[in-house]
């Protein structure tokens, strides 16, 4: 199923589409205000991009430096080539700890690896503790945004969900009271948690520490109460030095939500005495993406979600229309690397307006990569055959002045002569679903030009 078909489903509820668009645009505007307030913001983007480019160019070395430092800190380091291995490692750590209750803070990597269903299948309770993630976990839905996982839901939806799962009053839709109910519910889960899983925002090669950024404090609460901390990270989370965080912490929250910084920027280096800390370093297609020069820059992503908030398509199609763990523009350049056939429509779910590239705090040329994925998909015959042959035909027409001129005359004539109901039939003409066609003029520009008196110096020598 293509993005366009899923998007059309989202669009059916016009009011909700309006709400979704305006809510995310509001976040984009908050981001703008935060960005304008930092005079060196564009310089910081350049620095962040440079640091990430440098890190990718020495990735194997930094990974080893990080591993050595983490081990010296008393941390167990694991390597997972793919999602299955990542899941198996986490299950193994959990079993060895004799644990059955896991609290988890936000980690798009564990979403990508489908960790939750795997653990649940093996008899482990996994509770997502980020409020948005908990809401969608109750509803058995995937996140629709990487920073705002439940942004596709309205407070009434959350109220219904909490009524069912937490016993809040029917019709209770107040965000304050719903959040309080979740706080009480999750406190009990935190206190009972045996293993805490967290994501990783940054992994510092020099110190072996991982940095986790949250607003709710759920990562800190979970990790510091449980006996075992498992931090799962993609290989691209590495940065060289502690001081590099000066750049990234200034960019991340401002780009994500317009906050000057996340409430908690937590540095985990060593387990507390008597406790365990594990880091799982995951590839799952990332080294392959590193090997694609046109697309490797996508590995610079720090998962701020700014490209989603600004994307006029994402705002109107919803995160689920992408059917991939990371939706929106960045997801559309990450997903074909994972499964080109399944995600072949995503690079086309864009007008290439370029706003994503301009908000990206690490300067990923997202819209250029979308364009390049289109070429890869075209060459691999992963675009609809009708489009492919249509474009081939068009290519021959437009490479020839004569054929082009005749084709244009014919089309305009047809447009003028055929009845409106036929030229604007939605079944035959997607343009006409919501738009009138241009009125076809009797003569084209070139026909008009040919009839003009020759200018003083008609050739290419006019001064």
């Amino acid at each position, binding site marked *: 199923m293509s993005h*366009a078909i899923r998007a059309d489903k989202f669009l059916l509820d016009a009011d909700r589409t309006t709400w979704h668009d305006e809510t995310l645009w509001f976040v984009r505007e908050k981001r703008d205000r935060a960005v*304008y307030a930092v005079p060196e913001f564009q310089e910081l983007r350049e620095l962040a991009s440079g640091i990430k480019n440098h890190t990718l160019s020495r990735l194997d070395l930094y990974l080893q430096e990080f591993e050595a430092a983490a081990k010296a800190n008393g941390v167990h380091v694991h390597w997972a080539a793919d999602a299955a291995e990542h899941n198996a490692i986490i299950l193994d750590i959990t079993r060895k700890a004799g644990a059955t209750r896991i609290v988890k803070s936000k980690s798009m990597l564990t979403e990508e690896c489908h960790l939750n269903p795997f653990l649940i299948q093996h008899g482990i309770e996994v509770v997502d503790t980020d409020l948005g993630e908990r809401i969608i976990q109750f509803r058995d839905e995937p996140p629709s945004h990487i920073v705002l996982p439940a942004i596709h839901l309205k407070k009434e939806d959350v109220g219904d969900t909490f009524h069912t799962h937490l016993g809040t009053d029917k019709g209770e839709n107040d965000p304050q009271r719903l959040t309080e109910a979740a706080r009480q519910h999750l406190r009990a889960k935190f206190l009972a948690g045996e293993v805490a899983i967290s994501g990783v925002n940054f992994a510092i090669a020099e110190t072996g520490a991982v940095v986790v950024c949250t607003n709710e404090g759920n990562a800190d609460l979970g990790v510091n109460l449980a006996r075992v901390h498992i931090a799962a990270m993609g290989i691209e989370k590495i940065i060289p030095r502690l001081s590099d965080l000066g750049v990234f912490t200034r960019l991340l929250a401002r780009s994500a939500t317009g906050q000057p910084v996340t409430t908690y920027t937590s540095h985990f280096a060593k387990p507390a005495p008597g406790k365990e800390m594990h880091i799982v370093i995951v590839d799952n297609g990332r080294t392959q993406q590193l090997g694609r020069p046109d697309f490797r820059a996508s590995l610079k992503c720090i998962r701020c979600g700014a490209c989603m908030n600004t994307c006029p398509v994402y705002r109107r199609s919803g995160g689920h229309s992408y059917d991939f763990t990371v939706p929106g523009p960045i997801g559309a350049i990450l997903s074909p690397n994972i499964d080109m056939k399944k995600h072949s429509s995503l690079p086309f779910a864009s007008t*290439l307006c370029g706003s994503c590239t301009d908000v990206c705090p690490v300067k990923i040329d997202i819209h250029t990569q979308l364009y390049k994925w*289109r070429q890869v998909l075209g060459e691999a015959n992963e675009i609809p055959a009708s489009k492919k042959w249509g474009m081939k035909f068009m290519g021959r027409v*437009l490479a020839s002045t004569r054929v082009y001129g005749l084709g244009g005359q014919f089309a305009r004539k047809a447009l003028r002569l055929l009845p409106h109901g036929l030229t604007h039939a939605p079944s035959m003409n*997607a343009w006409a679903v919501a*738009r009138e066609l241009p009125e076809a*003029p009797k003569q084209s520009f070139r026909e008009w*030009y040919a009839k003009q008196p020759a200018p003083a110096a008609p050739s290419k020598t006019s001064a």
Partner: protein
Amino acid sequence: MKVALFVPCYIDQFYPQVGIATLQLLEKLGVQAHFPAQQTCCGQPLANSGCESDALPIYKHFVETFSDYDYVVAPSGSCVYHVRKHFDKLDQTADVQHVRGAAYDLIDFISTVLKVDALPGAFPHKVGLHLSCHGQRGLHQANESEMTPVRDGQLSRLLRSLDGIELTQLNRNDECCGFGGTFCVSEAGISARMGQDRVADHVRNGTQVLTGSDMSCLMHLEGIVRRAKLPIKVMHAAEILNGVLVNA
């Protein structure tokens, strides 16, 4: 200065008056532009659809058509952006490099090459400016809201210089209109919704004349305006500027 006029395929066929206005405006600004008749298209529709290799003969035809000119001027920033950015697929011969550098959007040409920032004339209407993404973010013809709160650009400067004109303050200064080339049919639902939202911003803020320097966005917006039978006139900026300028 040898200047060629590039009239993109869809303007040639559907909006000849925009090509005419461009030619006449340039003339009034002292530039005799020539229209090489063998021209067709820049190849963007194919390339944006993932069929870049099928577009290569079009690119070559474009370069052959225009390589003898100092400037290639088009009333469509999107096509110019395509030539500048995506003709990197061709062998970078001297001709190819020359044509890529010589391609200019009309308003960019007037502002940057002719160094004209103000024009005499009056246009006493409330005018809504639609910034095309390729002109603005691609060719940097206007400031971007992603970067700065300062709203400035080549076309808004030219328009503001006209007597009696009032420019619409939009809620979203530079949101994409949703045209996007073949996107407008392959993602017709989203494309239409984006266009409707864009037009609604203009309606809400009182636009009487909707303009821009990229006819492709305007074709899409005009289709929406006409379908909804809204009292907004859609004109390419060349038509406005050509209309207010008396012959030099």
